Structure formats: structure tokens, C-alpha cells
């Protein structure tokens, strides 16, 4: 290896990407950092505020801290609820899909359809669909005597957002799991049959271990997206009733753009970003470590 000529010309080829990342991510992010340590009294005059915004954000006794705390737990609860439904449901659907024949293409396309619809259209579809007076879904539930009202009933609002996310994104888990399942050679199933394994034993000892890698990706993607959910509650519930569906992203937009509180908004978005990053990093590290330990 050492006899190879070493030069650093390759870095020149990376420069365009670095420049692009600089302008697309790093400079905007630094702007946010810049805002987070300043405050303003309007008229575009800023003054140094130090870590005050961060301190109050992480202190639940302050008004902004309490608000952040509530929104954070609301968002975490939402993410975990969605994961708890979407991952098992996705695996279940993937297991019951046909493995060959003409039905494969049709069912995959049908399942992938929700993912192809633009975000704001999804919101509008569901907003009308769930209206208690004229929406097919909402009016049917009301007709059955259920106290369903997205804008007034907390349970209705919450469950509606969860249902939308499940409808919209379980297909992703299905497609990933299906691909993972198809990668398992037939011999494994034949061996399991010959070994007399039950359906459950086949799932637990062959399918689930072989799905582990795609499931880590699916869980990561689903966690990040549900943790950052914005469009659905924004369009369908507007964060209400009260602040029942005011998730972090909704609250962030309210503070930063609604109240034009750039200092607190910037601090909040940084903490928000770090939480997402940390959770993903910890999860990913634990899963890959487990894998490595198993190989040893």
C-alpha cells in the first residue's frame, strides 16, 4: 500500500459537492445558529442574547419551555404510536402479498399509490373525507352515533392524524419488507417445512432475522418522518383542538413565523434537529452493534 503514489488531487473532484452542500445546508444552518443566540425588538435590530433562548427552552417552568416540553412529548407519542402500528402492519401485509404471478405487479402498484400523492393533496383529501357534515368518513362515523369531530374532539383529531399517517406510509414498510422477504431463497422455506417448523417458527427464525436490516431502515425513515410531521396536522386539524395536535414542527412554525420570535424559534429548531439526530444515531448504533455481536 505504501508504495502507491499518494496525492490529494481527488479532493478537487469533491469540491463542487462541498460548495453545493455549503450553500444548501451549512450556511442556512449557521444562519439559524446565528439567530438562536440573538434577540430582536423589531425594526431589524438584533442584539446578543447568549444561551438565554436555549435555557428557557429546556426549562419547563418557563412558558416557552413548558410549551416545548408538551409538544415534544406529543410528537414522541405520535411517532411511537405510528411505528407501533405501521411496522407490524407493514410486515403482515408484506407476508400476505402474492409471491408470483400477475397479481404481484397489481398489488404492489395499488399499495404504493398513497406514497405517490403530493403532501398537500393528501391533507386536502383527508380534510374533506373526515368532515363531520359532508365527508364520507366523518359523516359515516357520526351517522353511526360516534362523537367524531376532527376540529373539536381530541380523540378524533389524534386518531385521524394517526390513521392518515398509517394509510400514507405503511406502504413504505410493506415495500421494504416485501423486498426483504423476496430476497430469502426458497430453500429456507423448504428446509423449514422439512424440519416441521410451524408458521410462527418460520417467521421468527427465518423471516424476521432476514428482515432485520430492512426493518432498521424502515424504522429509521418512519421515525424521522413522523417526528417531523407537519402537513397533515396543519391542513386537517390546524394543530387543534386546543393544542392537542400541535406537534413540534407546528409549534416551531407558530413561534418562528407566526410570532416572528426568531431567537426562540431558531433555538427550538436546533434542539429539535439534535433530538432527531441523537435518537436515530442511538437506534442505528444499537442495532448494528447487536448485529456485530451476533456475528462474533
Amino acid at each position, binding site marked *: 500500500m505504501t508504495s502507491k503514489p499518494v496525492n490529494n488531487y481527488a479532493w478537487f473532484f469533491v469540491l463542487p459537492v462541498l460548495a453545493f452542500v455549503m450553500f444548501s445546508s451549512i450556511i442556512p444552518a449557521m444562519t439559524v445558529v446565528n439567530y438562536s443566540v440573538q434577540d430582536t425588538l423589531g425594526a431589524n435590530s438584533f442584539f446578543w442574547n447568549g444561551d438565554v433562548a436555549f435555557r428557557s427552552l429546556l426549562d419547563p417552568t418557563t412558558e416557552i419551555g413548558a410549551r416545548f416540553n408538551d409538544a415534544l412529548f406529543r410528537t414522541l407519542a405520535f411517532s411511537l404510536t405510528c411505528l407501533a402500528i405501521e411496522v407490524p402492519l407493514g410486515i403482515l401485509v408484506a407476508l400476505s402479498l402474492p409471491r408470483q404471478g400477475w397479481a404481484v405487479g397489481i398489488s404492489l402498484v395499488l399499495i404504493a399509490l398513497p406514497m405517490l400523492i403530493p403532501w398537500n393533496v393528501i391533507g386536502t383529501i383527508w380534510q374533506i373525507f373526515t368532515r363531520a357534515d359532508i365527508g364520507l368518513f366523518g359523516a359515516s362515523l357520526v351517522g353511526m352515533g360516534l362523537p367524531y369531530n376532527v376540529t373539536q374532539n381530541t380523540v378524533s383529531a389524534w386518531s385521524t392524524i394517526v390513521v392518515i399517517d398509517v394509510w400514507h406510509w405503511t406502504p413504505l414498510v410493506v415495500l421494504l419488507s416485501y423486498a426483504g422477504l423476496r430476497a430469502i*431463497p426458497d430453500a429456507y422455506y423448504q428446509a423449514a*417445512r*422439512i424440519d416441521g417448523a410451524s408458521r410462527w417458527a418460520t417467521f421468527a*427464525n427465518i423471516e424476521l432475522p432476514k428482515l432485520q436490516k430492512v426493518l432498521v431502515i424502515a424504522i429509521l425513515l418512519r421515525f424521522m418522518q413522523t417526528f417531523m410531521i407537519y402537513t397533515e396536522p396543519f391542513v386537517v386539524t390546524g394543530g387543534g383542538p386546543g393544542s392537542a395536535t400541535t406537534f413540534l414542527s407546528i409549534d416551531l412554525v407558530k413561534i418562528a413565523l407566526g410570532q416572528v420570535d426568531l431567537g426562540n424559534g431558531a433555538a427550538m429548531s436546533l434542539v429539535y434537529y439534535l433530538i432527531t439526530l441523537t435518537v436515530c444515531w442511538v437506534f442505528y448504533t444499537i442495532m448494528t452493534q447487536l448485529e456485530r455481536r451476533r*456475528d462474533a
Partner: protein
Amino acid sequence: MARITLDGIAHAYSGKPQSDKDYALKPLHHVWEQGQAYALLGPSGCGKTTLLNIISGLVIPSEGRLLFDDVDVTRLSTEKRNIAQVFQFPVIYDTMTVAQNLAFPLKNRRMDKALIDSRVTEIAQMLDLTRDLNRRARGLTADAKQKISLGRGLVRSDVSAVLFDEPLTVIDPALKWELRSKLKAVHRALNLLMIYVTHDQIEALTFADKVVVMNDGRAVQIGTPSELFERPDHTFVGYFIGSPGMNLLPAKVSGTRAQVEGGEIQLGAAYPAQPNDKRIHIGVRPEYATLTAGAGLPVKVKRIADLGRKRLAYLSLGGQSLVASVPNGMEGIAGDAKVAFDPSRTLVYADDIRVEGTAP
């Protein structure tokens, strides 16, 4: 422990066979005896894996009946047949240890814990897996994994048969010998009916008591290794088994004499006259065709291959090519030479099927 009977078993993957060509496996009658080791030998696509999967129940045959002892199992599912099968590529359960892998088929059948343990220990000992019993199976090498697959196939003592589908494909050549002799030893120790699919003739001939040679969906000959070598029933067996294969030369046969490319040779038996529309060949293995200084068919020597312990001469006889042995000590072979066939080892084929001669 059972005898397996194939009663006219045939299979076509298309479902409704219209002609002979549609069959992946043509109708076959055969009885596999308890305690014997069989090999299914043939080139890729000859139907040997189909036959194996029919026996194990992974494929349901389109025709015929399959009997285990006297019970018809043709339509029984794999689980109910009491069969073990080892596949071409190692199949292991990733999350389990080696011991758990070996115990899995027994655990699924709700066997007694103590019984499972003793059985696992016994099989692990046979396959040299004892040291690895408590390791996770996924970290092991390919051949250790395949040993686990073999072990799972052998761990059940009550199986009707153990089926092997080219189990040594992924194994290192050096380890192949070791595993093969291990299998042979296990076979002797366990007294099981074993059926072994392979396209490697050495593997088939060393492992099996009886070899079924298959070609194009048909079992062309079932016999002991020496029967296949000495008296191939079909020209396919002649050139598929043996390296190089049997020499086949178009000939005219009358009584105990055969006309080959203008020359005449003596046969070991008298053959009845054959209809004119049949293609008649004589077949002689290179081991029984020798260059000679005495009388013989005139040939041209194309080249000599020195294999170390013997020499082979590649010859042309008229328009035909053939291979013959060079006797020890014969030197200066080039250009024109003479070849002689051992009459008792020279066989006659009509339309690829061996013709039985009568004592002269």
C-alpha cells in the same frame, strides 16, 4: 426406516403434458431399499432434482404413485412424510446456536428434552461439530454451515429417507473428500436410506451402493458403480461415466464379427441380426482399447496424453476419433499404429440401447 416405491412417477411442470418432450421426469418405476445409499447422477436439467423433490413432497408428481413401505404418500405434505433433505446451499437458522439448529427438527416434533440433547450430541460428534455447539451458527464458515445442514438432516432417527441435493457444491475441494467419507461413515452407522443427487460422477460412484444415471428426464440405467462402468446399458451412460468416456464407433455387426471403418474385429458374443433402420455402434472403453504392436485396426495417432500413472492415445480411425490406452513400455508412437479391442469388453448398441449377445 422405510422402503420407497416409485410406481410410474412422472412429472411435467406445465401441468398437461402433450408429448414425451413435456415431461421433466418421464414415467419411472423403482424401489429404493431401506439402508441403501443411492446416487442420482446426471447432467444439469436431467430431472434428478425434480425426482428428489417429488420424494420429499416439495413437488407433487403429475402422474404415478409414491409409496413409503405400503402407504401411498403421493399427495401428503412434506411435514407428514418424515423425510429429511439437505440442500445445495447451506440453510441455517441465523439467530440460533449450532446446537439449537440441530435440535430444531426434533423440537418442532415435540420430542423429549433429554432425548433431543443426546441425539444432538451424537450427531455433533459424527460431524465434528462438538466444539462449536454453543456458537452462533451465522458466524461460521460455509462448510461448517453445510455440516449443520447435514446434521439437521441426520438428526431425526425415524426418517424414512435422507435426501441430499448436491450438498457438497459449496464445499472446498479438499474438504469435499473428508465430508464425503464422513457421510459414508454416517450412512453405515445409522442404517438409513439415503438418496444423493449429484452431477459429479466421482462423488456418485464413491458414495453410493447403487447409482441411477439420468438423462433428459429418463433413468437410463440403475446399477452398481462397476455395472455402470463395465456394462453401460445406454450409450449415454457409456460416455457420461468414465473419463474419458466410452468410444462409440458406427459398425456393422454379424454374429461374432463387427465391421468398423473397413476393418473387422472379433466380439465376445454372438449378436442377432439387427433391422437395417437401426443405428448400430460398438462401444469400448479406453481402458479396454490398447495400442498394439501385433494385429489390430490401423489408426493414426493424433496425440498422446501422459496422465502420470497411464498414457492415453488420441487416435483417428477413418473418419472417427477414439481414445485408447498405451501399454507400459511402448515407445516411439507416432503416425500409423494398430489398436486392438478386448472382445469381451466390446459391447454392441442398437439405437443407443445395449444389445445382449449370446455365448458364441
